[in-house]
């Protein structure tokens, strides 16, 4: 049995398919979900504030600077621009996590697609009609990242090889490969710096009239809507959900697991590739070696907080965009490295799992302690009584 077993991560579904008992009304249900989503963020902000205090900074000033740098006086537009790659990565992760498969190679997929886009963009936007070149570059990025998931996908689908290892390793390879490409064939000969040719400003993604926000953000929102529709309103979405809930049941109802796993992987990679295209064509215009924003690392918590619901992810991503845009300024003001935001995100993840646990216990009407732990705590007392 162990030889044919496919390893599909924990069989207990993630936060996704939590059906509350009927004794709760709809309003209570919504309230419950709101509490479970927002409390972890608040707790993380409080804990982060305590950490700031310990480092000798005033957390209130820090958080006020985040608001100033992320929302006020037009900087909300910068936050909105950051949402483009974030949303697309979130979409890519939601698709694959719903199938309860771990695509942890998002950094490599993103970076390789970004390298190819910035490598080919200067030539393509010069030779072809701009709209055509742009569409082509988006497709190129999507195809690159999708292709990069193919090896883990096939290994997972055919042999059940753990996708955490394979996607991570493919990610390491992609990061090195991107660096090789940037130094080699894509290197801008006019500069000694290891970077690609800068795309002329007028050839980058156009802005939405009246703002600085590029249309890549609209592409991201459109992708979110499409993914939401596909995941919740089509049979393919349902199949993904069944695969995520119980792979054995999925096979039992006649779903072709290998094909579904591979297509889920390709979709995930494609969306992550689009994120790279939107980021390069909309914001940066070139890429340099060593640049690895690792967006996905910080997006994961919010994908879970949104319970793998594509629409619910949008407010969280908006929040995080403000946090990261304003956080850069606040950290600068406070003389802290921006890596402080990583601490906040890590704390959000930790508090989220705890709150999720407490919520599930409450709704099952169980004690907040796990049975094993209760046993462990009770055992010494019982023993004393017996003695």
């Amino acid at each position: 049995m162990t030889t044919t077993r496919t390893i599909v991560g924990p069989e207990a579904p993630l936060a996704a398919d939590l059906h509350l008992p009927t004794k709760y009304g709809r309003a209570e249900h919504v309230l419950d979900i709101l509490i479970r989503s927002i409390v972890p963020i608040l707790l993380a902000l409080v804990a982060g504030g305590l950490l700031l205090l310990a480092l000798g900074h005033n957390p209130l000033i820090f958080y006020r600077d985040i608001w100033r740098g992320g929302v006020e006086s037009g900087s909300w537009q910068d936050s909105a621009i950051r949402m483009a790659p974030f949303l697309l990565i979130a979409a890519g992760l939601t698709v694959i996590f719903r199938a309860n498969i771990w695509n942890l190679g998002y950094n490599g997929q993103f970076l390789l697609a970004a390298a190819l886009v910035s490598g080919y963009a200067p030539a393509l936007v010069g030779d072809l009609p701009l709209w055509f070149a742009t569409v082509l570059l988006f497709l190129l990025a999507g195809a690159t990242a999708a292709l990069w998931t193919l090896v883990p996908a096939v290994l997972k689908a055919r042999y059940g090889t753990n996708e955490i290892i394979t996607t991570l390793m493919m990610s390491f390879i992609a990061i090195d490969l991107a660096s090789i490409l940037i130094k080699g064939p894509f290197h801008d000969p006019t500069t000694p710096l290891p970077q690609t040719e800068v795309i002329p400003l007028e050839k980058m993604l156009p802005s939405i009239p009246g703002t600085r926000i590029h249309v890549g953000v609209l592409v991201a929102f459109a992708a979110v809507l499409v993914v939401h529709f596909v995941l919740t309103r089509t049979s393919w979405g349902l199949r993904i959900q069944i695969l995520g809930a119980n792979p054995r049941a999925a096979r039992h109802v006649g779903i072709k697991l290998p094909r579904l796993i591979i297509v889920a992987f390709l979709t995930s990679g494609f969306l992550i590739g689009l994120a790279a295209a939107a980021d390069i064509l909309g914001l940066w215009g070139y890429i340099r070696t060593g640049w690895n924003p690792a967006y996905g690392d910080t997006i994961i918590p919010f994908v879970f907080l949104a319970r793998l619901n594509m629409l619910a992810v949008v407010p969280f991503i908006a929040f995080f965009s403000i946090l990261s845009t304003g956080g850069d300024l606040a950290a600068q003001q406070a003389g802290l490295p921006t890596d402080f935001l990583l601490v906040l995100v890590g704390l959000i993840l930790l508090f989220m799992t705890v709150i999720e646990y407490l919520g599930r216990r409450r709704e099952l009407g169980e004690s907040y302690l796990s049975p094993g732990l209760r046993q462990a705590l009770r055992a010494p007392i019982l023993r004393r009584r017996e003695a």
Partner: protein
Amino acid sequence: MILASQVWTQLFWTTLLSGGLVAGTPLMFTALGETISERAGVLNIGLEGMMLLGAYFGFLGTYYGHSVWLGYLCGMAAGIGASLVMVVLCVWLGLDQIVVGIAITLAGEGVTSVLYQTHFSTSQPLLGAVPRDPIPLLDQIPILGKAVNGEFPLFSQPLIVYLGLAFAVLLTWIYRSTNVGLNLRAAGEKPEALDAAGVSVMATRSYAAMATGALAGIGGALLVILTGTFQPFLTQGQGFIAIVIAMLARGNPLGVVAGSFLFGISLSLNDELQLIGVNLSPEVLHMLPFVLIIVALVLFARRAYLPPALALPYVRGAR
């Protein structure tokens, strides 16, 4: 001319072997740790964060305590501290091990980077060179033992390197012929059976996770002590590489030693190749082992074996 080339090749082999060993040792400690918790059914994705915490506190210990051993101790303590989060949330409460692991990695990256940059960014202190402990007699063997041009050969390494190798052997014995080893494996293969045998699954998994944290902490501290300074994100994914090595070695400590040594060589090969005048891009060398593993996985896809109960929380009485 012939003489010169002979010296170069000898120097090349000396540095290749010792460089591989030195670069591979932090990885070896961490990956050995991962085999322990993996056997017990706890998938520790937070190794990267634990290594970084171990590295930072190992740096503090060595810098302020003026002793590498204090550094290892501090690194170990930091690793255990981080693993306690894992113990409470994943083992006791049964929360998702992968989510908690990612959280530990992120928080570890952030905390160490912030602490280092607030306290040391202006001074950027360096640790002293590591004391070397040549093995008597063996250090007389050419290439393997005799120092060439100030390069330290295989048998003149810091004591901790030998301790690590000895620990791998010890671990093999523990896994193979002790009750502790059997309990660990049962906790990962069939926790119900272990429970029925009257051994606490919770306790077994808790100690396993803590041992992993301790070893990852030592691995991080080693990384700092061998490179001589701390830098934010200095592990560069080595925590994840350690997970890969542990999985591919199927939890076999000696396999882990071999894997870490190979990775160590590929990590340090760049310097050696430059010594003999070959200039290969560091990226190519860096990705080579990963490419090899992927090719190996495609060819022998069934080799990576994981315990059936890995990453699954144990709930007594659940189906």
